C-alpha cells in the first residue's frame, strides 16, 4: 500500500506540472501525409533537402521536423508506390508551420527520389520481419487495454484465469511463458512484477504494440524462442490525455498521460499514471459442497467474493530531446504496485477466501539516443534500467477453508493455510538491464547494426512463517550477455534483405546441496554460450504486393530455476541446454485502393517452427523430486490470414484467422522408473493449446453529426476459439475427455467526440450475449459487462 500512496502523491504533482506547462515555441514544421483515398500513410520519407534533415511519418501519417533554420527550404515527400512531391517553403524563426500532403499513387513505373543526406534513409524499416504492429490510434476512446489489443493479433491467444488482474498465459504461435519476451519501449519486462499485467496498461498510454512472430530483430537483444512483443508508450512531445472509465463489477480505470517539451531548450517532462480497480465480483456457476466435501448443489450461480484487484503505475521521464548532444536523453522512474485477492486454484473446485498476492516495483530508467554521433551515419542508443520488484504471497489464514457461498469450515489444523502449508513468502527480484545499439549507414544501400544486451538478475526468497526453509538462504543470480550484429542490404528499390547473427553468453551462480544434508551446500557456477542467426527479406512484386520471408535459429537460455532447481525437491541439472527453434515465416500482403473510396488489404503468413530441447520439469513417480530436462520437441505448421476493407473514413471491416497445427515430435520421454521410453504422443497435437481462432471488427465513423468537429463512432468486435482438449487428443474415449469448449464473444461500443476529439465519451458492452467463456481448465471469465469511458485530450 505504501506504493499506492506514493503513486497518488506523484500523480497530483505530475498532473499539476503538466497542466501548467502546455506551451511551445521555436521553428517547427509538422503535418500529416495521407493517400488520395484519405488513409494515413506510415513510413513516408519527409526530407528537408537543404539541411540534411529528415524523418518518416508515424502510424498516424504525422511527421515533425524541429530546429529549422530561418529561410527558404525544399521539402521532399516520397513513398514507395506514390508520386513524390516537392514543396518550397519559407519559414521564420520560431514559426510553427503545418503542411499536409496528399500523395497520389504513381502509375506503372515507380519513381525513386535520390536521397542525399544519410539521416533521411536511416529509419530501418522492419518491414521484412513478420511483425504485426497495432496502432492504438482508433482505440483511444475504447476501454481496451494492452491485453485486449494483443488478443486481436493473428497467432496470439491470451488464456486468462479470471477478471481484471488475474493471471494469464500469453501464447504466440503456441510458444508460451518465457519463450516469448516482452518489452516496454525496448526494455525487457521479464521481471517487472505482476503490476505490469497487460490488462493494467490502458490504450491511452500506448502508441503502438509490435508483435514479432518467431524472428526477432537484433536491436531488441534477447533470447526469445518464439518471438517478442514490444509495447511502445506515447512518444509525442506535447500532449495531454486524461481518461476515466467505470463499469460492471465496480471496475474503475483512470489514466493520465502527457508530455511537455520546450522546443527551444529541448527540456521535456513526460509520463503516464494509471490506476485500475475492480471487485471482479462477477457471477459464476459453481459447485456448493458441505464440510465433508460432498456435493450439495451443482451449477449454482454465485458471486465471486474474494477477487478484488487494484493496481497503480506511474512512469515519469525527464530530460532533453532534439538537442545538439542528444536526440533523446531521458531519466525516468517507474513506480508500480498491485494487490490481488486470489479466488480460485487451478480449477474452480478449489475456492479461496483469504489468499492474496501483492507486488511492488521501482524501476529507474535511462534512455539515450543520438543520430550522427561523432560522424555522419553513425547512430547510437542506450537503454538501461534497474528494477527492484518485491512480491508477497500471503496464505496465512489457518484452520479454515471456504466454499462458494463464502461459508467457512474448520480444518482443525494450525499450520495448514488454504494452499497447503501456511506461508508468507516474499520474493525480492533485482534486475539490471542494458541495451546498447550502434548502427552505421555506409550509404543508401548498406547498413550495419550492432546490439549488446546485458541482464543481471538476482532473487532472494524469504518466508516469514517458515523460517527454516533452506532454499530461501541459497543465492540465485544470473548474468546474460546477448550480442547481435545485423547487416542490411537494399538490393534494389523493391528488394531489401537483412542477415543477422546473435551470440548468447550465460553465467548462473547459486548453491547446491550435495547430499540431503544442509551443511553440504556448495557454490555452483555454470557458463554457457551459443550462437543464433537469421535473415529477413522483403520484395515488392508489385507496388502493392509485398512478399516477406524470414528465418531465425532462435534460442532461449535456461533460467536459474531451471538450471539449479530449488535446492530441495527440484533437483539441479547443470547439463541443461538452451531451448532452440528453427522459425520460418513467409508472408504475402496485398493492399489496394480500389478507387478513391474503397481500400482493401489482404495478408497471409505461413509459419513453420521446429523447436527442440524444450525444457520441462520431469516429475518422478517413485520420489518426491523433479528436475528440468531438455526433452520436448514440437513442430508447428500454421497459417494466419488477415483481411481489411475500408470505405472512405466511414466504414471499416477487418478479420483475421489463425490455424496452427502444433505437434509433439519427441521420440523419447523420460521417467525415473523406466528411464527413456517411447513417447506415446509423438505426432499428436500438443494439448491445451488453441489451434483455430480468429476475430473480426467492424466500425462506423461519422463526422460532424450534431455539430462541427464532432465524431460519432460505433465498433463491433467478435472473437472465436475452437474447442480444444486439455490432454492429448489421441487417448481416452471422447465422452470422458476434458474439453475446453468452443467460445465466441461479441462486444460493441459507441462513442461521441466533440471539439476535434478534445472531449470524448464512449460506452462499451462487452460479451453482450453473455456467453459463458472459460480459459485454462474451466476457469470462468466474466459474462456481460458494461463500461463508460470519459476522455479529455489536448
Amino acid at each position, binding site marked *: 500500500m505504501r506504493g499506492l500512496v506514493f503513486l497518488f502523491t506523484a500523480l497530483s504533482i505530475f498532473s499539476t506540472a503538466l497542466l501548467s506547462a502546455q506551451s511551445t515555441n521555436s521553428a517547427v514544421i509538422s503535418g500529416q501525409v495521407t493517400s488520395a483515398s484519405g488513409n494515413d500513410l506510415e513510413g513516408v520519407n519527409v526530407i528537408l533537402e537543404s539541411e540534411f534533415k529528415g524523418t518518416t511519418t508515424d502510424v498516424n501519417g504525422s511527421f515533425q521536423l524541429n530546429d529549422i533554420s530561418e529561410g527558404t527550404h525544399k521539402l521532399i515527400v516520397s513513398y514507395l508506390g506514390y508520386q513524390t512531391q516537392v514543396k518550397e517553403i519559407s519559414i521564420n524563426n520560431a514559426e510553427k508551420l503545418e503542411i499536409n500532403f496528399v500523395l497520389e499513387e504513381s502509375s506503372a513505373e515507380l519513381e525513386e527520389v535520390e536521397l542525399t543526406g544519410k539521416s533521411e534513409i536511416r529509419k530501418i524499416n522492419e518491414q521484412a520481419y513478420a511483425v504485426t504492429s497495432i496502432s492504438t490510434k482508433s482505440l483511444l476512446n475504447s476501454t481496451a487495454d494492452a491485453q485486449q489489443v494483443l488478443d486481436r493479433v493473428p497467432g496470439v491467444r491470451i488464456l486468462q484465469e479470471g477478471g481484471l488482474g488475474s493471471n494469464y498465459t500469453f501464447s504466440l504461435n503456441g510458444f508460451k511463458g518465457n519463450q516469448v519476451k516482452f518489452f516496454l519501449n525496448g526494455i525487457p519486462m521479464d521481471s517487472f512484477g505482476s503490476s505490469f499485467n497487460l490488462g493494467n496498461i490502458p490504450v491511452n498510454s500506448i502508441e503502438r504494440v509490435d508483435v514479432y512472430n518467431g524472428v526477432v530483430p537484433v536491436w531488441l537483444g534477447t533470447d526469445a524462442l518464439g518471438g517478442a512483443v514490444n509495447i511502445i508508450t506515447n512518444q509525442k512531445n506535447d500532449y495531454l490525455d486524461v481518461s476515466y472509465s467505470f463499469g460492471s463489477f465496480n471496475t474503475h480505470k483512470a489514466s493520465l498521460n502527457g508530455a511537455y517539451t520546450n522546443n527551444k531548450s529541448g527540456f521535456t517532462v513526460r509520463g503516464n499514471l494509471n490506476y485500475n480497480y475492480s471487485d471482479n465480483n462477477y457471477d459464476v456457476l459453481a459447485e456448493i459442497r458441505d*464440510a465433508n466435501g460432498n456435493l450439495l448443489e451443482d451449477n449454482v450461480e454465485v458471486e465471486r467474493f474474494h477477487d478484488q484487484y487494484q493496481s497503480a503505475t506511474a512512469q515519469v521521464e525527464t530530460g532533453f530531446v532534439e538537442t545538439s548532444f542528444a536526440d533523446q536523453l531521458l531519466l525516468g522512474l517507474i513506480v508500480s504496485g498491485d494487490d490481488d485477492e486470489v479466488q480460485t*486454484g*487451478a480449477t474452480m473446485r478449489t475456492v479461496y477466501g483469504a489468499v492474496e498476492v501483492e507486488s511492488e516495483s521501482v524501476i529507474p530508467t535511462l534512455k539515450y539516443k543520438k543520430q550522427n554521433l561523432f560522424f555522419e551515419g553513425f547512430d547510437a542508443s542506450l537503454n538501461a534500467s534497474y528494477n527492484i520488484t518485491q512480491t508477497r504471497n500471503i496464505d496465512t489464514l489457518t484452520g479454515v477453508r471456504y466454499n462458494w457461498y463464502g461459508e467457512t469450515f474448520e*480444518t*482443525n489444523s494450525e499450520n*495448514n493455510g488454504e494452499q497447503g502449508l501456511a506461508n508468507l513468502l516474499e520474493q525480492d527480484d533485482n534486475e539490471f538491464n542494458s541495451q546498447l545499439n550502434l548502427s552505421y549507414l555506409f550509404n543508401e544501400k548498406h547498413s550495419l547494426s550492432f546490439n549488446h544486451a546485458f541482464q543481471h538478475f538476482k532473487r532472494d526468497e524469504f518466508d516469514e512463517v517458515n523460517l527454516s526453509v533452506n532454499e530461501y538462504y541459497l543465492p540465485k543470480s544470473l548474468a546474460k550477455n546477448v550480442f547481435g550484429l545485423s547487416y542490411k542490404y537494399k538490393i534494389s528499390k523493391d528488394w531489401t534483405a537483412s542477415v543477422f547473427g546473435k551470440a548468447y553468453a550465460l553465467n548462473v551462480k547459486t548453491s547446491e546441496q550435495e547430499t540431503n544434508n544442509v551443511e553440504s551446500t556448495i557454490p555452483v557456477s555454470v557458463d554457457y554460450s551459443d550462437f543464433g542467426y537469421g535473415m529477413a527479406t522483403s520484395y515488392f*512484386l508489385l507496388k502493392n504486393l509485398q512478399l516477406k520471408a524470414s528465418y531465425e535459429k532462435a534460442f532461449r537460455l535456461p533460467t536459474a530455476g531451471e538450471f539449479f532447481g530449488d535446492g530441495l525437491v527440484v533437483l539441479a541439472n547443470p547439463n541443461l541446454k538452451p531451448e532452440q527453434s528453427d522459425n520460418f515465416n513467409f508472408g*504475402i500482403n496485398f493492399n489496394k485502393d480500389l478507387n478513391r473510396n474503397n481500400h482493401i488489404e489482404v495478408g497471409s503468413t505461413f509459419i513453420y517452427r521446429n523447436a527442440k530441447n524444450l525444457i520441462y520439469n520431469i516429475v518422478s513417480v517413485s520420489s518426491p523430486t523433479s528436475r528440468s530436462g531438455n526433452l520436448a520437441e514440437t513442430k508447428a505448421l500454421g497459417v494466419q490470414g488477415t483481411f481489411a476493407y475500408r470505405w472512405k473514413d466511414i466504414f471499416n471491416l477487418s478479420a483475421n484467422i489463425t490455424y496452427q497445427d502444433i505437434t509433439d515430435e519427441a521420440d523419447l520421454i523420460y521417467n525415473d522408473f523406466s528411464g527413456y521410453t517411447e513417447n506415446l504422443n509423438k505426432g499428436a497435437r500438443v494439448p491445451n493449446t488453441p489451434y483455430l481462432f480468429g476475430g473480426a471488427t467492424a466500425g462506423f465513423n461519422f463526422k460532424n453529426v450534431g455539430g462541427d468537429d464532432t465524431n460519432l463512432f460505433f465498433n463491433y468486435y467478435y472473437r472465436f476459439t475452437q474447442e480444444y482438449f486439455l490432454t*492429448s487428443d489421441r487417448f481416452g474415449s471422447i465422452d*470422458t475427455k476434458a474439453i475446453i469448449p468452443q467460445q465466441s464473444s461479441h462486444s460493441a461500443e459507441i462513442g461521441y467526440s466533440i471539439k476535434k476529439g478534445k472531449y470524448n465519451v464512449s460506452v462499451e458492452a462487452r460479451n453482450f450475449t453473455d456467453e459463458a467463456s472459460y480459459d485454462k481448465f474451466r476457469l470462468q471469465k466474466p459474462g456481460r459487462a458494461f463500461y463508460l469511458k470519459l476522455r479529455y485530450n489536448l
Partner: protein
Amino acid sequence: MNKSIFNFSKALALSALSLLFVFSTVSCSDSDDEGVSCQGGDYGMSLAIQSTDGSYTYYTLAYNNLMSGTLTAQGQGIEQPGYYDFKAIDNTIYSLGGLDDVNVVAISQDNGCLSQAGDVSFPNSLSDLVKADNNTLVSVAMSSDSDIITFRKFNPNTVSVTETVDIQVSEFTDLVGLSYSGMVISDDHLFLSYYISDPETFATTHTDQAEVAVFSYPELEFQEVITDDRVGPIGGFNTKSGLVKDQAGNIYAISHSNPANGYSQSTKPAGILKINAGETSFDEDYFFDINDVANGTMVYAKLLSDGRFFAEINTEARANQAMWSDSPLESAIVNFEAQTVNYVQNIPAHAGDGRRLVGFEEDSNYYITIPEEDGIFVYQIDTQNYTATQGAEVQASFIAGFYKF
C-alpha cells in the same frame, strides 16, 4: 510491368484470398464426430500416459485378453488428467486424485460398460482408502508438513463421505514429518503405520524403531502408538504396503529402510513383524528375517486366496541401492507363517512404479505388469509352480492399476 510477373503476382494474391475460405473448411472438419463409446471386459487397467510437458493423464479401461497383442488407450478409456492413485475394492475401482483438488470416483462395470460415480472433493490428497466393512470405506489423509491427519468414512454405494475425523499429530508424536506407509482395519481397531521424513529435505533421521498408531474403530479415537526396536520404521515412500492383513485378521508389518524407497539412512535390519488377530501389540515371538531367507528386503506384499502373499523383493543390498529407484525388484510368493520365499522364474529383475503395487489374482495365477527395456508387459504368474509367462504389451508410461472385475 512484365506480364508474366504480373500473372504470378495475381495468382499469389488470389491464393492469399482463397486461404480465408480454406480456414472455414478446416474449422468444420475438426468437430467431434465420434460417438459415446461403451467399453467393457473381464479385466481392468489404469494406464498413465506422460505428456510432453511432463504431466500425466490417466486412462481406465476394460480388456478381455491380457495375454496377447497390445493394450492401448487410443480412442478409449475413462480419462482423468492430474495426479491419481487407484485402489480396487471388491468389484469397484476407486480413483483418488484430481487436477487441483482431490476427488474419489468409483469406476465400475454397469451393463458391460465402464461407468463413473461419485463427486466428493477435498483440498488435500488422500494417502489411502481401505475397506472396513461392506458398508464402509475409510480413507486417511496425512502429509509430512501437516499437524493433523484426517480420517473419512465413505458410503461405498453413494461414494459420499459420512464422517470426517481430524486427529492432531501431537496426540501421538512430537516429531514433525509424519509420513504414511500403511493402514489396516482389523476387528475394532485401525492400525496406521508411518515413518518420519523431513517435510523439506525428505531426510529420514528417525530409523531406530517401528511405530504403528492404533485407533479405535468405528470411533476413530487415538489409543496408543506401539513400537518395536527389532526393525526400523514400517514401509516407505508412497508404496502404501507397510501393513498387510491375512484372512484370519493377523497383521504383518514390513520394514525395509531401503534407500531405493526414500530412506536417507538405516540403523536397523529389515524384517517382518506380526500383530496377532484381535491384539494391539507386536508378537514378540514372531520375527521374519526376510534378508536371511530371501537375500533381499520386501517392499510390496499382497494377500493371495490361500493365505500366502505375492511380494516384490529388492535384491540389492541397501548400500548399493540407488536412492528413490524402487529397484531392482524380483517377484516372489511368500508364506509369512512358514517363513518361506519362492522367487518367480522368467521375470526379469525390474523397477517398481514407486507407488502402490498393481496386480490381481485369478484362479492359481497372479497377474502383474513389468516395465522392461522394450516396453511394459503383462506377466501371468503360476503361483503353484513359480513360473511366469509374458503376455500383452501395454502402451503406457506406467501402470497405475490392474484389476479383475
